[in-house]
């Protein structure tokens, strides 16, 4: 059973809504509280990038079944903004880099288990991140 939650992102209020939905979804899947915070923080950062650089976009939340991996949450942050000119630069990881510079993408990558980004100049950016549940709690689905 797939849950596809969509939150249009246009203002900072939407950022709060998106991360609230992310947290609720995580809680309903028996993620630990700490994991839920990581997910909500990742959503917050990605949504904020949309507001700051693309003016508008959407955050999509999906439950995914990873077989033996258990269940996970996939967050897709999509916009039709200016795109990222230099992806390598944006993803350059320096552990001592402050997250308040640039897009904070290396930081977001550390919060999640899987990270994928597609960006084309003037065509927009799509960031897809996944976090798998490692905590306790059985989830039985149909």
């Amino acid at each position, binding site marked *: 059973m797939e849950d596809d939650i969509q939150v249009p992102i246009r203002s900072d209020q939407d950022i709060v809504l998106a991360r609230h939905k992310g947290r609720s979804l995580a809680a309903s899947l028996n993620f630990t509280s700490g994991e839920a*915070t990581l997910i909500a*923080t990742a959503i917050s950062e990605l949504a904020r990038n949309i507001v700051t650089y693309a003016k508008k976009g959407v955050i999509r939340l999906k439950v995914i079944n990873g077989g033996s991996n258990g269940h996970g949450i996939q967050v897709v942050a999509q916009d039709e903004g200016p795109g990222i000119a230099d992806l390598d630069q944006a993803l350059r990881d320096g*552990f001592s880099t*402050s*997250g308040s510079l640039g897009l904070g993408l290396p930081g977001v990558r550390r919060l999640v288990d899987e990270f994928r980004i597609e960006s084309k100049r003037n065509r927009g950016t799509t960031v897809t991140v996944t976090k798998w549940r490692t905590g306790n709690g059985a989830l039985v689905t149909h």
Partner: protein
Amino acid sequence: MEIPILRQGRVLIATLQAAVPDVDLMRLRTNLVQEVVRGRSQGVIVDVTAVDVMDSFASRVLQDLAHMIRLRGAETVIVGIQPEVAFAMVQLGLRLENVATALDLEEGMDYLNRKFKTTA
């Protein structure tokens, strides 16, 4: 909604709720600076116990706040960062450099009082 600022002696205290809109956070920054100047306060405590997500924006605003208040001769302490929030923050690379932090309100006041003693 405006975040209320309490005065306790030489210290100003502001308590953030769970999800503070950007504009309110920035207004708090302005108000605190104004209040510090007006009341000649020596310390500011920002209590983030209720905050469940700290992202780069909030972190930047708090850092700016501390910097601006220091320029006015006062010291800022951020208190009540939750363990999970702290964990997420350092993963993200947000370290609140140059900003004093304490476990809670009591510790924050303790820190400021010790600071006042040394600078008095």
